[in-house]
């Protein structure tokens, strides 16, 4: 049951991603990415990054501080990015719907930046990491209670091909 929900959420995110670059996020279910993201059993694959390590970290209400769990995931993300330098990443910051629109854009920017700073601290070249905030515009889970809100307060590290800029 849990797994089914997660799959559904990831598919849900596909349509939301507006990006012209090739993306290798689990969220991306398009034929292109599915063909190129590789097997989750291959530790150099995007699928491994997305699913085995985890492409996202979650935040407390109105916070952009990284939890110990988030730092554990991000440490592995950094290690992976340092070994797989063909990839860059866009870090997407998001907020739940409990807030005004502009504030949530700014809050998502804080969250994305917190992730970016951590990854840079762990050795990832800054020019491989971009940030963008979607505020409350792109929820993954759409109910109006905490069970959904906690999934939406997130920063997602979306892999892209190509060297940094």
């Amino acid at each position: 049951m849990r797994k089914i929900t997660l799959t559904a959420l990831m598919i849900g995110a596909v349509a939301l991603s507006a990006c012209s670059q090739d993306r290798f996020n689990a969220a991306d279910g398009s034929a292109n990415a599915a063909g190129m993201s590789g097997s989750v059993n291959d530790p150099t694959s995007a699928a491994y990054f997305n699913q085995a390590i985890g492409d996202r970290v979650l935040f407390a209400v109105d916070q952009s501080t990284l939890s110990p769990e988030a730092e554990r995931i991000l440490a592995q993300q950094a290690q992976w990015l340092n070994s797989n330098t063909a990839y860059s990443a866009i870090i997407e910051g998001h907020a739940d719907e409990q807030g005004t629109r502009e504030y949530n854009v700014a809050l998502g920017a804080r969250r994305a930046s917190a992730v970016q700073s951590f990854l840079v601290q762990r050795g990832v070249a800054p020019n491989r990491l971009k940030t963008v905030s979607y505020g409350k515009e792109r929820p993954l889970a759409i109910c109006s209670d905490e069970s959904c809100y906690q999934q939406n307060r997130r920063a997602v590290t979306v892999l892209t091909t190509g060297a940094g800029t």
Partner: protein
Amino acid sequence: MTPTKLLALALALLALAPFVSAPAAQAQDGRLRIEITEGVIEPLPFAVPTFQAETSGAAPYAEEITRVIAADLSGTGLFREIPSSAFIANVSSFSAPIQYADWKAVNAQALITGAVSEQGGQITVKFRVYDVFSGTELGQGLQYTGTVDGIRRIAHKVADTVYSRITGESGYFDSRVVFVSESGPKDARQKRIAIMDYDGANVKYLTDSASLVLAPRFSKDGNRVLYTSYETGQPQIFVLEVGSAQRRALGTGGGNMAFSPRFSPDGQSIIFSLEQGGNSDIYRMDVNGGSITQLTNSPAIETAPSFSPDGSRIVFESDRSGTQQLYIMSANGGEAQRISFGPGRYGTPVWSPRGDLIAFTKQNAGRFHIGVMRTDGSEERLLTASFLDEGPTWAPNGRVIMFTRESQGAAGAPALYSVDISGRNLRRVPTPDAASDPSWGPLQN
């Protein structure tokens, strides 16, 4: 004036020669008057018999114009229409003398009569307003001329005149609203910028839904709209010409996120939020490019800036105290005074066009409210309460506020609502799809 045919309405405001003999002082007799500064009022009953069709074929126009006038006035909550089924007399011709007793008998305090003619695609509407109980005409007869496809605008002009004569305030019916039209499920919402009449009629789309767009904001003259678009992959500020729907990026952000823009009252510059290293501050920029000035400098979130009507000050929100609160600073930046001190969080402040009030969104105890306060923070009043109300915008006369109300749950969607500043007359504004982020434009010329 905008160049599109729909809007090129060449409204001629003419005092009809035969009416000019009525002395202006007659309008001052003061009996028929609504004081809309007071809280609770009894709506003023009015009768508007269907305007006379003075040329063949004008009857459908006369009917529509009359209905729009009645809807405008009733929609304010300040007026109540007496249904024509209650009438005991008709108006046989526009020039016939008024039989006040017939209108007193049905308890109409105001009577609006009019006539419509059509010639070569031009519509002319003339009308008079009467104070039934004192048996006098209120002001002078007027006529408006426009094109057939602009008859709703002509009707709004008539209603604005009636509203203005009875309330002493300027009206707001001949105005437009830009907003975000939304479709699709909550986790894959498609958004595009749209424009409509204040009452939801004549919706037109100004952008497609290829990119996420947020929060359009009118210039004071109503000719341009600022908005935020994700079309480059980053939130960036665009300006759109309403008449041509031409748009261009303002180049505000460089590689950084720029959002929450508003025009200065003179339309020469914009204020907006710019994010750097995760921190959002408020900046000012010449709308034609050129220098960018940083107005706030703190590690807090500073966003949602709005100019005072004279352009000298800026109200904005900041969480520098730990939660979102409202602050006012000089238009050149510098020290800011906090003005919100109640429980909860305050955001999206908007200065009223009269300069006297700030409208805002308040979050407290799990509810959202639209409220107003004086510019010094005193006399805070909450006008609405719901699961999610946000983003107030002012009617051009500063008497009514429109905002976004989003319903709860997986099937939740936003809609536009209006409420007057006393908290009365909450109404949903009809839109074809879900709608958010309204920005109310000026009265049109």
